[in-house]
């Protein structure tokens, strides 16, 4: 079976972007769900979005500025999220509002057509470039490499951060590393899913997986599987029904979460009690 250059452009790139993006979102989602920091992730995705807008404004690579903003947000949010002396939710609310404010400020300052802004809001997987696919591939290698190398340390931090610290694991470094990797994944998926929707693809598949298993390895695999199913089914629906691809992917991801929740062995066994 051979593809013409045009067919390659039309199908293979989006498909590869969907597969690579789903796998990284599936892995990072497990971290976000088990660390119980969904709002941190939402804030980071909006920071990445604001960064991309400022990239357009400054006429530089928007993904680079998005990465800087997302990493900056991670470094700011990390200490805030672990402070015990005040409510982290309140501080996160302020940072979240700030990232949105910066994004809209950037949009307001932009001159000329704002097509790219909408791409970063909604994403369009059909317009990804080979460079985007390559970056997603590199991010996948990075994340899988770190996961394999630091698996036991990451597991300990996901189980309980205080215990991880008490047994001599560099818990804060690992936590920040996870946050920054989360920022990288979000940034690299801005083009495909969009800044406003990407976080659903991080949280929903992992949350669905959390409903179904008591084993961490299985949770990773299920989360990746659900993210892949969401992306591929979403893409198919988008193609067949002429829907925005990012929105279709997120709707499928939410549907999978709903089904997992309804048929969760964990939830049903608790109801029986």
């Amino acid at each position, binding site marked *: 079976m051979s593809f013409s250059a045009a067919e390659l452009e039309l199908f293979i790139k989006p498909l590869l972007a969907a597969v690579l993006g789903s796998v990284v979102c599936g892995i990072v989602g497990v971290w976000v769900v088990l660390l119980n920091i969904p709002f941190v992730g939402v804030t980071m995705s909006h920071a990445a979005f604001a960064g991309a807008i400022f990239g357009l404004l400054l006429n530089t690579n928007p993904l680079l500025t998005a990465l800087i903003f997302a990493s900056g947000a991670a470094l700011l949010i990390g200490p805030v999220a672990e402070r015990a002396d005040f409510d982290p939710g309140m501080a996160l609310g302020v940072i979240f509002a700030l990232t949105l404010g910066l994004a809209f400020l950037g949009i307001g300052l932009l001159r000329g057509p704002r097509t790219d802004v909408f791409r970063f809001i909604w994403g369009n997987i059909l317009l990804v470039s080979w460079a985007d696919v390559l970056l997603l591939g590199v991010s996948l290698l990075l994340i899988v490499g770190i996961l394999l190398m630091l698996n036991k340390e990451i597991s300990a931090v996901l*189980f309980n951060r205080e215990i991880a610290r008490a047994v001599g694991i560099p818990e804060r470094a690992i936590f920040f590393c996870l946050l920054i990797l989360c920022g990288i994944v979000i940034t690299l998926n801005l083009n495909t899913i969009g800044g406003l929707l990407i976080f659903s693809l991080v949280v929903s598949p992992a949350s669905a997986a959390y409903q179904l298993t008591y084993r961490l390895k299985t949770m990773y695999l299920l989360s990746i599987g659900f993210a892949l199913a969401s992306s591929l089914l979403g893409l198919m629906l988008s193609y067949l029904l002429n829907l925005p691809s990012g929105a279709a992917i997120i709707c499928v991801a939410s549907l999978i979460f709903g089904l997992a929740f309804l048929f969760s062995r964990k939830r049903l066994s608790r109801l029986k009690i």
Partner: protein
Amino acid sequence: MIPAVEIKNVTVSYYEHIALHNVSLTIAPGEFVGIIGPNGAGKTTLLTTINGLGRIHSGTVRLFGETVNRRNIRRIRTQIGYVPQQLTVDPRVPFDLQEAVLLGVYGKIGLGRSITAQHRQKAQELMAYFRIDQLKHRPVGQISGGEMQKVALARALLQEPKILLLDEPTVNLDRRSITEIIRLIEEIYRRFNLTVVMVTHQIDYLPGVCNRVVLVKEAKIIWDGEKEAGVKPERLDELFSG
């Protein structure tokens, strides 16, 4: 003899709240020290200054002659077994009991290295010792409070620690579990030749092997001495009075 723990003029504060004020305490190797006081007195803060989980504003902590600092704290923590106040674990967490025990050795093994068959064997022996080996594949969020404390003790002992820190190990347990946990703590102390520091506000549950008590009130040590003298009713009345 070099003290196991030497806390000198330590102050810990969280903004305007002073959790410990200019506290000094020396513990000899092999001692079993009970730290007693009302809620909010600074007992847990005193305990966590030893393993560096509490952030010290001023003063020094030395363990076996070595001053604890940012550079050596992770290595020192691998030599300190810590049993925190009973954990609230989501019943749905994807970790089983065995994993929660094995975690104890992760810091000691070091970054990027895998646990060995020897570590698994040691964990198995400890789980058998605490009679929780039958539950090793059970989700750790679905075990009882007493079993959770045994997991914490097994995890701490897997580290092969020199010092064992126990933070309210009997809180929220039923009478039977309390008796069992106290018996196990006594056994561990004797069998593993440890220095033990145990925080409690339940004086009745201090193990018989505890020979020294430190009374903590309003961020200060108000009394330090032999257990029999420390737990006299008039002294405890003073400790727990408003």
